[in-house]
């Protein structure tokens, strides 16, 4: 499903964020990305979404070399990928409902589909009472849950989650993790960057550890450290 071949990413200003990474993730896998702050986890995820281009190496997503993808095809790649951003990236002047609906509007879903699916997904993340609030009127954790809802409302093939529980208390985190697990069981490939030792240690899934851009560990059924 996802394959990185000798991928190196050096940001301008000569900041190496990922060095010579080789990773193969199969369809339906659940992968944790762990590592210190600044070790390259977000960079890894951004490369898969073609938000950043690798400096060297090739990346395959769903069998396609995304480095040679035409510019106008990029939106279609992204529609197969759900993405929970580390900084949420909600649209500030759309309500919670509209934010989630937007991911469906973009791919041209008819409005009756939107009207039935969006409330369902918002219920799953526990935001039924906040449907008409704007992002500025939500707590940090609530915004994060909207971001989670938007990421998988259109049932993507792949779900990228960049610290989706960073702003959540332990109880709510467990709820979100159950949801991710359920999504994963329906066949969606999940890649999740996290700092949460508790979650990694209880889930016991594949763990890839980064250190200053190097992959220093790749362990199935691993723990945080």
């Amino acid at each position, binding site marked *: 499903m996802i394959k990185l071949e000798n991928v190196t990413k050096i940001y301008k200003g000569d900041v190496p964020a990922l060095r010579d990474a080789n990773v193969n993730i199969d369809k339906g896998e659940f992968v944790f990305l762990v590592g210190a702050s600044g070790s390259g986890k977000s960079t890894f995820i951004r490369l898969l*979404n073609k*938000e950043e281009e690798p400096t060297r190496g090739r990346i395959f997503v769903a069998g396609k070399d995304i480095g040679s993808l035409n*510019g*106008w095809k*990029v*939106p*279609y790649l*992204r*529609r197969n990928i759900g*993405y929970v*951003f580390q900084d949420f*990236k*909600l*649209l*500030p*002047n759309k309500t919670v409902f509209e934010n989630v609906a*937007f*991911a469906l*509007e*973009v*791919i*041209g879903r008819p409005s009756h589909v939107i009207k039935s699916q969006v409330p369902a997904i918002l219920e799953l993340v526990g935001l039924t009472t906040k449907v008409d609030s704007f992002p500025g009127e939500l707590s940090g954790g609530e915004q994060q849950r909207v971001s989670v809802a*938007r990421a998988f409302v259109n049932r993507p093939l792949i779900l990228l989650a960049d610290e989706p529980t960073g702003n959540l208390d332990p109880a709510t985190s467990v709820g979100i993790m159950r949801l991710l697990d359920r999504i994963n069981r329906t066949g969606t490939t999940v890649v999740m960057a996290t700092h949460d030792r508790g979650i990694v240690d209880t889930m016991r899934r594949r763990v890839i550890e980064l250190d200053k851009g190097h992959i220093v560990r790749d362990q199935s059924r691993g723990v945080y450290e």
Partner: protein
Amino acid sequence: MAMNIRYVARETGTNLRRNLSLTLASVVTVAVSLTLFGAALVFAQGVGNMTARWKGGIEFIVFMQPSATQEQLDSVRTALEENPEVSQVSYIDKAAAYEEFKQLFSRSKDMIEAVDESAMPPSFRVAPSMSDADVIQALGQAFQKKAGVREVVFAFETVRTMQRITRIASIVIVAVAVFLLVAAVLLILNTIRMAMFARRREIEVMKLVGATNWFIRVPFMIEGLVHGIAGAAVAIVGVQGLNWAFNRGLSNNRDLKIFQGFVISGSQMSFTTLLLIGLGCLIGALGSGIAVSRFLDV
């Protein structure tokens, strides 16, 4: 690509409303520039109509009686053509005179119906070879007494002054208008660009969520078009108003008899109207098009 019309309309509407005062500023600038442009056009057309018969060095006109015989006409023509002080003569027959009359009074249908072609005086338009006013005066008056001649009319100094002033004025107005048109394009460009800049994070997010460039662009482009068209609409009203006020103001002035030929025909007005709408669309499309293509690429 199935783009939801409702979505586009909603987005465009939101943008227009959100930046209401910026929208207003754009529309005002487009309106002012197009009004000036239209006014200059109308003005030039009016002066053109008014002084049409005095083109090409024509200094006096020998009007014949409508009842003048062919011999009388031939005799005047020969006399004019053989006179060494005349450099050029052109003959306007009844049909051409009637055309000109209809043009001048295009707005008073009853006037046109009251008069028919046979009542029109044919005329000779004469360009002398000298420019001395006294010589021209003497030359023209010599024809006054000829058989079949009704009247000899000289170009007033006013006509010539008018032609010059209006030429200068038209150039200045058009220059200002073009300047303003550029400003209008710049302004729309900037309104759109600022709208996009203010929403740059949103645009970035839209892209990351899988929106195509066109999905993001179209609402902005329509916004620019709306600015242009709204500005043109205001300008059309403005130009019609100016034309009306000018005609009204002038027709009551005994001193300004000369301006009574200053009448814009309906077709000239339609032409101006269409031109203004076209320019409005062009300005809007250009401004937003540049903005969208320069500031929205991935």
